[in-house]
């Protein structure tokens, strides 16, 4: 039943039968890159794994005025970053949000975030039959200048 502590259904549908909402999304190693004063944007990264296929369609955070889901791509040595309408999480497959790929973009930051702090994030997922489920994540902040170990594409937990 830990599922229920991790999922918060959208308010409008909160009273509907619970059995159909057994989808869980496991969030591993969430983190946010630290910022300095006057810096208005940063990225949040994590690994997501859904029991049943869902789509990450939105995110929110009290630290940011605007939160978008972005994809970074290198095109002939040119870095391009784009908002994407959603990120599919196929059932049972770990999808990584990491530097060089996808991230949750936190914009219009209300104040700098620095190492030692934790940033609350709300992730909004949409199921195949268009129900929305929300999940709260506490993402620790890593120092801006810290070298992030290149990910080795684990594709599994830990």
């Amino acid at each position, binding site marked *: 039943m830990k599922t229920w502590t991790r999922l918060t259904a959208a308010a409008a549908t909160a009273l509907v039968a619970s059995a159909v909402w057994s989808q869980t999304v496991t969030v591993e190693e969430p983190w946010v*890159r*630290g910022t*300095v*004063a*006057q*810096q*208005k*944007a*940063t*990225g949040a990264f994590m690994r997501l794994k859904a029991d049943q296929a869902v789509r990450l369609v939105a995110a929110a955070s009290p630290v940011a005025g*605007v939160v*978008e889901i*972005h994809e*970074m791509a*290198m095109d002939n*040595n*040119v*870095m*391009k*970053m*784009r*908002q994407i309408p959603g990120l599919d999480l196929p059932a049972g497959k770990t999808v990584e949000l990491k*530097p*060089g790929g996808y*991230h949750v*973009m936190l*914009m*219009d930051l209300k104040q700098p975030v620095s190492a030692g702090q934790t940033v609350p994030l709300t992730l909004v997922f949409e199921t195949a039959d268009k129900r929305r489920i929300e999940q709260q994540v506490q993402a620790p902040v890593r*120092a*801006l*200048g*810290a*070298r*992030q170990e*290149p990910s080795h594409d684990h594709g599994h937990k830990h």
Partner: protein
Amino acid sequence: MASTNDAHAPGRRRVLGLAAACMIVAAGLAACDRSPTPAFRGIDVTGAPYGRELQLTDQFGQRRTLADFRGQVVMLFFGFVQCPDVCPTSLARAAEVMQRLGPDADRVQLLFVTVDPERDTPALLREYLAAFHPRFLGLTGTPDEIAAAAREFKVYYAKVPTGSSYTMDHSAQTYLIDPQGRLRIVLKHEQSAEDYAHDVAALLRESASGG
């Protein structure tokens, strides 16, 4: 066909022949290892007809040109502060390169040219770069000056709207300029700190040996 060309320049024939022989040997056998030319992990662009000058202002308000950095290897790349991914990764890697080089890092200068002067104020650049390394320099200027610098280094950048804000597309390669101020090496974003340190060290060694 090649011999026809040679026949038209008989006086230079021997020189060309020697050069050609050396190139063939170098390409085929790497037998010219004893020459002072080191092997690089990045792309060797020595002699490229671009990347020769830079006139911008650093985060402390001082005007900077490439001539200020003679005697040092310059690591140069273009980016912007509101970039969540490539730029901090590049800067953290550059800081690791400095660490790997030990005392030799004193002869290395990182230059970060902003392609977003509108948001990347000198004050922001000061705070941002200090988070990576105390000696990193951030360069900015008028939009025209930045456009000129990007043109000179064949760097592409463009403002792209995203929702209520904007992001910048930009070339993500790093240039290495040798202690004589010559553009020498282009490294890709995907390459490791070890690759970067290798090429920087090679340029420092080459310069120490008078090459």
